[in-house]
């Protein structure tokens, strides 16, 4: 099921809500119990994301934000430990920065 989105906004609270929705879609097949997803939530340790789940996440991000947000390139710039320990907040901040760059440009 696809999600209906409002127009793009470079607002951390809005982006967090959108990202949390995408995470729930990615994890749907694992039937997780009630998930608390906040800025401090970590993809690996807290959400039990495997690396292939981050690829699924990239698909959702691409569908929502298009080429403005290049998640694959963002992760490719990191060390392996940083990818494993990535938090939802880091991703939200990256997305907000990308959206602001487009607004400003």
């Amino acid at each position, binding site marked *: 099921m696809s999600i209906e989105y409002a127009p793009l906004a470079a607002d951390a609270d809005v982006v967090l809500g959108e990202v949390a929705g995408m995470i729930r879609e990615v994890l749907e097949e694992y039937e997780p119990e009630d998930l608390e997803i906040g800025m401090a939530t970590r993809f*690996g*340790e807290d959400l*039990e994301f*495997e*690396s*292939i789940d*981050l*690829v*699924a996440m*990239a*698909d959702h991000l691409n569908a929502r934000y298009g080429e403005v947000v*290049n998640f*694959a*390139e963002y*992760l*490719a710039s990191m060390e*392996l*430990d940083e*990818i*494993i*320990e990535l938090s939802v907040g880091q991703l939200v901040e990256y997305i907000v920065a990308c959206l602001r760059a487009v607004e400003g440009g």
Partner: protein
Amino acid sequence: MAKFLANGVRHHVQRLPARQDSPGPAPVVVFVHGVFIDTLASFYFTLAPAFAAAGCEVITYDLRGHGKSERPPSGYRIDDFVTDLDALLDEMGVTAPVHLVGNSFGGTVAFGHAVRRPDRVASLTVIESGPATRAWTEIMAGALYKVTVEPDQAMAWFTTEFGRTVANLTPPQQAHLERLARAATRLMETTSIVLDIPTSTTVDDEALRAVRTPVLLLVGGGGLVSDETDRLQALLPRSRTVVMPGYKHAVLVEAPHQVGEATLAWIREQHAAATPAPEEVETG
């Protein structure tokens, strides 16, 4: 998430279009990941974005049983994976010869494809890998035997064995490895993969001498295949070896920039050699 039905199995595919124009057709690069704990993520988050940015059409996919591809109960011999790859290229409408880049087991699949369909493979890059020789099947049989006699120890065995392939294993990586080992255990418990891999059809020396495809052998200094590499280079008529000192079998994830630079330079060289210069096209 793009899925393609190839050889009766639904495969998860990720394509990254070339983000830079090149004179003439862009090289098509297909990344093939390793077995058990691996998925296309190993390439998607390392080499793939840089290759797309450098003007390559990038294709990467999850092997059957892995990642987000379907996990059929049987059909895990090298030949099955080669048929999957061949059918996948058909399904995606890829007609130009491709540059195959395979990591570990993925390199063995890529080798199999170059042997079966030399017309379809412009170049081969194998990272810590080699063809499915008789020696290879014996090593795989030996490694997987422990899993067949003690299936309840499979996960512990995986984390230990794969932990040894990494030169510098950090605590976050150890935790991640345990998550990946769970996926590997699911694959071994629900399919015939452990029995199938060691009974794959083998490639003999004569077949290797006949491989006309240019091959780059990329090996970690302390990896699993360094002993075999000299022999392999002597057999293959058009091959080159690059050694990455200080790294082991997991060189792709530990040194993605070095692996990427060596691989991209090799593919550019092979692509240029196989593509007529623009002037020749105009005057011809």
